[in-house]
């Protein structure tokens, strides 16, 4: 394996692994805060059980997120020393703010997890919320750094050196708002549907369990709201991409020729040699509208750029289709959920709906990984768009395939262990918590309303 390819793959594996845990770390504290709040307010044991059960799972995800994040902050240098040498002083600022946010988060998580008997209920609740807030802030800061790689700002590039550095403008580069918004929503959407889907599955197995029913509702509520906003935020992001990284947009859409009134290409297999797409579905003029807000506008195709500077078109286009496909499915499901909840319809706990939610479990994370593939692979061959090429940034150390294999096997192993631990955790929760059993329907006032609909 080529060294550059090994380095890129190691980066992709590490980030692809970390982002799952980071997203859960951003969103889960809010799910817990809702259930924790209801426990303090209503005193119904199901909410206490839920908060505790979730927090034990989250502890495992947190530790894994923290160690994989630590690995990343070293890997940036281990793999891309020339990139960091130049980029460090420019985008160090979001990273140092991120450090502060992590620190507060790590303190808050210690207080939250071990504080049940030591803090007063509202302080404890506030600490839990703080975990979520600092988690979201750290996500925002690190995505600012990534947005800078996509739309570099805040320095002058003179003879291969950065001069007149302005860390402030680098952090708040033109892409930061739309990218951080999109990522934050993605974390809530992916986590909400993953957690909700799992509890839907358990609810199918044990109809009438108050524990899983409440969990399902809280998680899907948060996921659905995010899923409805996400396409709008994605549209805004795409307009920015069209402006700032036209080559990436062209690759996302597999648009080879510059066209006015460009069609939106759905699916299909891009053929780079023949510069056309096989088997795709074309919707006339729609791309021009989505990218520029005008059905007749001109959209730049890949032909405008030297072929050596094209990103891998098939990967970027395919990943984009996956993201948008999964996003549309989730938005539809989310809209249905919100509609049914608003009408307090018993259909919410209908087998069919639970089955749909269970099937949607992986879709959010699938979209999230696909979205990052679009962003990162679509930026190739640049590591800093238009400024520095990935191949000029890689470490000169030979034999990079070995660290790549080492990290990959560690992460595969860890993923397996975490999955196994979650499996044990869920089984134990069913044994341990009263409210998880069907007879608990009568446990609290009003909790039996939907319970019988399919018992």
């Amino acid at each position, binding site marked *: 394996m080529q060294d550059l390819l090994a380095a890129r793959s190691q980066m992709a594996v590490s980030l692809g692994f970390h982002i799952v845990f980071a997203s859960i770390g951003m969103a889960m504290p809010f799910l817990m805060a809702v259930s924790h709040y209801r426990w303090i307010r209503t005193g119904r044991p199901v909410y206490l059980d839920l908060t505790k059960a979730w927090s*034990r799972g989250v*502890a*495992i995800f*947190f*530790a*894994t997120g*923290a*160690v*994989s994040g*630590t*690995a990343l*902050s*070293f890997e940036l*240098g*281990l793999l891309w*020393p*020339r990139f*960091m*040498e*130049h980029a*460090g*002083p420019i985008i*160090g*600022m979001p*990273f*140092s*703010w*991120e*450090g*502060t946010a*992590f*620190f*507060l988060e*790590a*303190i*808050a998580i*210690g*207080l939250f*997890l*071990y*504080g*049940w*008997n*030591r*803090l007063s209920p509202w302080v404890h609740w506030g600490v839990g919320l703080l975990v979520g807030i600092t988690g979201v802030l750290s996500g925002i800061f690190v995505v600012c750094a990534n947005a800078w790689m996509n739309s570099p700002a805040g320095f002058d590039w003179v003879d291969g050196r950065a001069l007149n*550095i302005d*860390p402030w403008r680098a952090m708040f580069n033109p892409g930061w708002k739309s990218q951080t918004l999109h990522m934050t929503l993605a974390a809530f959407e992916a986590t909400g549907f993953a957690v909700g889907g799992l509890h839907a599955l358990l609810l199918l197995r044990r109809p009438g369990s108050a524990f899983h029913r409440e969990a399902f509702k809280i998680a899907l509520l948060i996921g659905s709201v995010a899923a409805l906003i996400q396409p709008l935020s994605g549209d805004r992001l795409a307009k920015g991409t069209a402006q700032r990284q036209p080559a990436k947009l062209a690759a996302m859409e597999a648009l080879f020729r510059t066209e006015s009134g460009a069609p939106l290409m759905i699916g299909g297999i891009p053929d780079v040699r023949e510069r056309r797409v096989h088997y795709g579905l074309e919707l006339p003029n729609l791309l021009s509208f989505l990218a520029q807000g005008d059905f007749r506008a001109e959209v730049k195709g890949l032909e405008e750029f030297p072929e050596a500077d094209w990103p891998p078109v098939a990967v970027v286009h395919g990943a984009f289709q996956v993201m948008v496909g999964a996003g549309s499915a989730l938005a539809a499901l989310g809209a249905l959920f919100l509609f049914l909840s608003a009408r307090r319809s018993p259909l919410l706990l209908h087998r069919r709906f639970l089955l749909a939610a269970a099937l949607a479990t992986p879709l959010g994370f699938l979209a999230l990984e696909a979205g990052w593939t679009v962003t990162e692979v679509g930026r190739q061959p640049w590591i800093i768009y238009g400024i520095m090429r990935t191949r000029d940034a890689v*470490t000169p*150390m*030979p*034999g990079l395939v070995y*660290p790549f294999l*080492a990290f990959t096997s*560690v992460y595969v192993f*860890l993923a397996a*262990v975490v999955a196994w*631990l979650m499996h*044990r*955790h869920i089984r134990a*929760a069913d044994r341990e918590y009263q409210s998880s059993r069907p007879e608990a329907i009568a446990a609290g006032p009003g909790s039996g309303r939907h319970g019988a609909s399919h018992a």
Partner: protein
Amino acid sequence: MWVVILFLGASLLLYCLLAGADFGAGILEVFMGRGKRRAQRTIIDRALGPVWEANHMWLILMVVILFTGFPAVYSRVSTNLHLPLTAMLLGIIARGCSFTFRHYDAVKGRSQRSYSLFFIYSSVWTPFCLGVVTGALVPGGIDPAATGYLEGYVRPWLRPFPLALGGFTVCLFAFLAAVYLIGESPAGAVRSGFARRAVVASAVAVAVGGLVFWAAEADGIDLAARFLASPAAAACVVGATFSLPVLWLALAREWGWIARILAGGQVALILAAWFAVQFPILVKLKNAPDLTFFNSHAPEATLYQLNLALTFGAALILPALYFLFRVFKSESPAPDAH
């Protein structure tokens, strides 16, 4: 820039004092007698659980300060010391995960033994690698122009001094942990067990410390002479040595807090001496000018922003950290919710 240097030094010190002790607790598990193992492990679990992630953040802070404030150093070190750094990262991953999994596995069964195994060995491995990396900055074995794999990526750290320093770091962390854990345990056999281990660990640390000086000579560094030449460094070493008997007395009497302060002070003195000897050099290079605080720092605008972020961050973090430690480290160990 001085503020940035101060934060870098403080992070290193706090990382050693806090996270070092967390690693040390794992090292001590290697030497646990069968009988008391369960009681000791409970104490360690309770001592580390709430704080290890926060303690670990000092390392992240160090990395961020390095790549923002001294990018040339970060880039040089992570290029030539790729291998020991990767080894350290794998240790960090194994330690953090195995500790958490051990505590949070819903079923406390046979798997506990595997977690413990990973936890113990990664607790020894990680500080060793940390010591090796730190040690490799000193002898001037890093050659930016090296082309061969061995010359460029193995020889800089595979030499007597870094390896000895790795061993010393392990002893030092074990010593810190033993001293801290005295205060975490109720009076009785377990507590005196930790006190005894603290005495042994400090004696071993002194011996291995001597070994470090010897290894330095073998590596062509006149470390002893450099310590003597710097009055500040010499004073620190003298201070650390002469406080040892007092520490032993405190350990024999099981005076938890006095022992903690003395032990922490000794580690601080060792680091201060190190700093005094090295300043202003960060990395000694072969066939090239050394990287110092003065020739490797980022432009002023960056340092200014970094300064601001660190000061503001510290204003938020320190009170929060104080609260964390007050909640969990005051009083007698209360029963846990889990």
